[in-house]
Structure formats: C-alpha cells, structure tokens
C-alpha cells in the first residue's frame, strides 16, 4: 500500500515536472524541472529493486542537467524569463502527435495480455549485473566502449574552433576570404 502511494506520487512528480520543462520561460528552471523528473524515475527504479541503475541514473542526470544549464546560459544570449518570447513551432501538430502516441502506447500497455513473470531476481542484483557485464554480456560492453570513444572524437572534431567544420559555406575547398587570425586546419 505504501509502495503504491509512493509510486503514484513519484509518477505525478515525474510527468508534471516533465511537462513543466516546456511550460516555463526560464531555461534554468526548465533544466531543473527535467532533473526532478529524472530523480523521480530513478527513485521508481530503486523501488523495483534496481538500486544501482536508479542511483547512477539520478547521479548522472543531475550532473548532466547542471552542464545543460551552463550551455543554456551560453547559447541563449538573452534571458527568456526577462524577455518573454515564443521559441516554438507547430505546437498544434506536435500536441496532436504526442497525444496520439500516448493513446497508442497506453492502449498497448492496457490491452496486451502480458505474460506471467519468469524467474526471480537474484539475491544481490548489483553483483549479478557485475557478473553479467564481466561474463556473458561483455561483448555488449565492449561494443559500447568504442562507441563512447568515437563520440568523444566526433564531438571534438565537430565543435573544434577553426577546425574542419568551422567554415563559411558548404564548399570544403574554399579558402576563407579574409582571415584576421592565423592558425586552424589548413589556414
């Protein structure tokens, strides 16, 4: 009973704070609202016994949202909370698609005859995850590793100032007409 009350309270918090992300003017508030949504989902994972995954979800997403606030402040150039303006497009079509998706997913969740539970959780879930990662699921982890490394390289190449993709126009061979600064790739 207590678990049910806690679950529904967390569910309301997760969905409400998720909706708040796109309702508030302040980018910082939107980011913190998303962090609250992730914390609520992380606690729900802890409720179903996934302590390790739930805790790393909370820790990772709180740090990620803290970084996201910095990016918001860097790129916005102005404060929408002080200068309200609409930075959305096709709100009606988006809402229709979102509601349609929810109806479809909810119908699937309610109408599908889900099978009975097979097996029982291990006594120590974190230890069983560790054994899986270092044993039969090692190939999955070995695949993720180069993907993450490639992400680091690609992110640096794309975001690098005066690098391959920091140029005017789409002609990769065109030289910059006037370049007040020396340095950079091919300059």
């Amino acid at each position: 009973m207590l678990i049910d009350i806690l679950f529904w309270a967390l569910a309301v918090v997760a969905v409400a704070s998720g909706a708040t992300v796109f309702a508030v003017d302040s980018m910082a508030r939107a980011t913190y609202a998303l962090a609250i949504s992730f914390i609520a989902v992380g606690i729900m994972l802890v409720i179903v016994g996934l302590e390790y995954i739930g805790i790393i979800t909370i820790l990772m997403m709180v740090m990620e949202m803290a970084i996201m606030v910095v990016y918001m402040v860097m790129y916005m150039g102005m404060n929408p909370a002080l200068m309200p303006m609409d930075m959305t497009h096709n709100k009606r079509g988006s809402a229709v698609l979102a509601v349609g998706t929810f109806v479809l997913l909810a119908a699937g969740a309610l109408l599908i005859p889900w099978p009975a539970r097979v097996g029982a959780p291990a006594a120590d879930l974190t230890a069983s995850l560790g054994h899986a990662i270092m044993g039969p699921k090692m190939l999955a982890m070995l695949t993720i590793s180069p993907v993450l490394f490639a992400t680091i390289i690609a992110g640096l190449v794309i975001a690098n100032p005066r690098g391959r993709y920091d140029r005017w126009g789409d002609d990769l061979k065109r030289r910059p007409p006037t370049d007040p600064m020396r340095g950079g790739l091919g300059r």
Partner: protein
Amino acid sequence: MTLQAVLLVAAALFSVGLYGALSQQVIVMVMMGLELMLNGVILAVGAFWWFLAPAPDGQVLLLIVIAAMTVEMAMGFAVATLLHRSRGSDMTDSATDLSG
C-alpha cells in the same frame, strides 16, 4: 503498482518528451525533449525487467540506454556549438539546409 500502471507513466513521459522534441526551436530544448523520451524508455525497461523477466539482461539493456543518452547529449552539444559558432544561432529553424 502494476506493469500496466508503470507503462502508462512511461508512455506519458515519452509523449511529453515527443511534444517537446517536435515543438521546440532551441536545439538544447529539443535535446531535453529527447532526454525525456529516453526517461520514459528507462522506466518502461525497468518495469519489464521487474514484472516479466528479472534476469541481469534487463539491467544490461538499461545500461545501454543510459549510454545512448550520453552519446545523444554529447553530439547534441557539439552540433549546437558548431551552429552557434558558424551562424550565431542555436535554433533548429536556422539549420534547414537539407530540407526539401
């Protein structure tokens, strides 16, 4: 707490995130919509794991989803940085070069 109830909450999170990803113009806000969609996916996978098959495979799948979120965020920030530097804007409407 039943599987259906958790899946309904996950569907709500996914749908709210979909609305944000489609309706927002600022790239970082679009990323926040995508993250909210993945938040729903994480909750749904956790529910499937607990209510249907509590084997370690489900936990590994959750780790992969979390890794996908990391990749999405890193590449999104890289693209936002490039767009902001080259065009002075971080709006999706200023990056429609490939639209038909």
